[in-house]
């Protein structure tokens, strides 16, 4: 909506004129937002967005309107205007649970677990039985700070693991994102490790809530490569390979590396 003022303005003017010349009563903002909400529920985000813009022109301070706008921007992956809309809601109602949830999800996407947890706790202070906030807070609270130590301190050495030749990246970490080994190590390794740990926590929570136990392994297919993950309560092994490697073979590599890493760590501890 933001940045499309001229186009949107023309559309809205035409809609308003049609209503006036048709002799019909113009819809109230309540009616506009209700219809927008119905469109949103059907996944018709852009049409809903036009209506919300129209409603907010008529009632710029509407909490319902700004909340809908934030939700629609987030649905369209427009996180900057989504954040602005949620903040508008909080300017009127500082403990609006859904606005706090929306901001918490944006903070989580940006890797700000502390900020996200704070927002979720504020939402739960207003509405303790808020299932979405409870579910996300559980995930956020299980993630610890990233503590990077050299691989040698953990007894894991790349040369002692039989890393497949097709491997584009290998990461071994604790579920709290403490990095044990990265091959190769680059400027984005820490971020990759933190994102991998968060992905595993989210997936594990999703599986648990669905009654399917905790995460054992994962396959993430990208346009350019595939990442396979083998994990348990102590270790995450993430292996990225090109599409030329079959998924079953890739999972076999991940399983073997996971087992080798456990053996190496046990040897070091013993």
């Amino acid at each position, binding site marked *: 909506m933001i940045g499309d003022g001229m186009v949107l303005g023309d559309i809205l003017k035409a809609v308003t004129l049609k209503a006036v010349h048709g002799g019909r009563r113009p819809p109230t903002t309540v009616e506009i937002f209700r219809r927008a909400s119905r469109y*949103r529920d059907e*996944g018709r985000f852009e049409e809903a967005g036009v209506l919300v813009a129209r409603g907010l022109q008529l009632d710029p301070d509407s909490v319902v309107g700004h909340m809908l706008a934030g939700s629609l921007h987030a*649905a369209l992956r427009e996180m900057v205007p989504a954040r602005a809309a949620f903040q508008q809601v909080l300017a009127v109602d500082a403990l609006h649970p859904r606005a706090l949830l929306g901001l918490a999800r944006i903070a989580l996407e940006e890797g700000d677990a502390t900020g996200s947890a704070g927002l979720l706790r504020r939402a739960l202070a207003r509405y303790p039985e808020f299932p979405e906030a409870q579910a996300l807070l559980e995930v956020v609270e299980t993630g610890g700070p990233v503590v990077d130590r050299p691989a040698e301190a953990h007894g894991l050495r790349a040369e002692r693991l039989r890393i497949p030749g097709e491997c584009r990246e290998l990461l071994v970490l604790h579920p709290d994102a403490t990095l044990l080994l990265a091959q190769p190590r680059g400027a984005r390794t820490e971020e990759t490790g933190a994102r991998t740990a968060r992905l595993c926590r989210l997936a*594990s929570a999703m599986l648990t809530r669905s009654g399917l136990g905790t995460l054992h392994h994962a396959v993430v297919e990208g346009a350019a490569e595939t990442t396979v993950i083998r994990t348990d309560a102590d270790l995450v092994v993430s292996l990225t390979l090109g599409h030329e490697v079959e998924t079953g073979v890739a999972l076999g590599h991940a399983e073997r590396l996971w087992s080798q890493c456990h053996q190496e760590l046990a040897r070091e501890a013993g």
Partner: protein
Amino acid sequence: MTGSASAEPVGRGQEVRALLREIVALPGVRGGLIVAADGLAIATELPPGMPVEAVSALAATLGRELELRGPRLRRGTFLAAQFTGTAGTVFVVSSPIGFLVVVAEADAHADAVRYSLRGAIEMLRRAWAR
């Protein structure tokens, strides 16, 4: 967000729900949902007792994490993912309206689920291009 608001819905919601019901009818599939990136469930076919709100919030956050992982880490676009637990698998694919998520038991035929998901995504793309 641009576009024009038509007078009445054209029944896309019904199409989406029918699509989901077909996938959920596959052997071993417990349920599924289509959730927008903001966490709002657009269609759900989940068994009784499964916490819809919590699962929707987690599914959307998981989908976004998968989406962001690719470009941030220069890995290209996320296509599909499957997460296997001790008692079954969760499948996640990206769609024009959000994420299509399927919850399947351990004995479900993973290839059949993936095949159905690919078809569903194509159908959603066509419907949302209209």
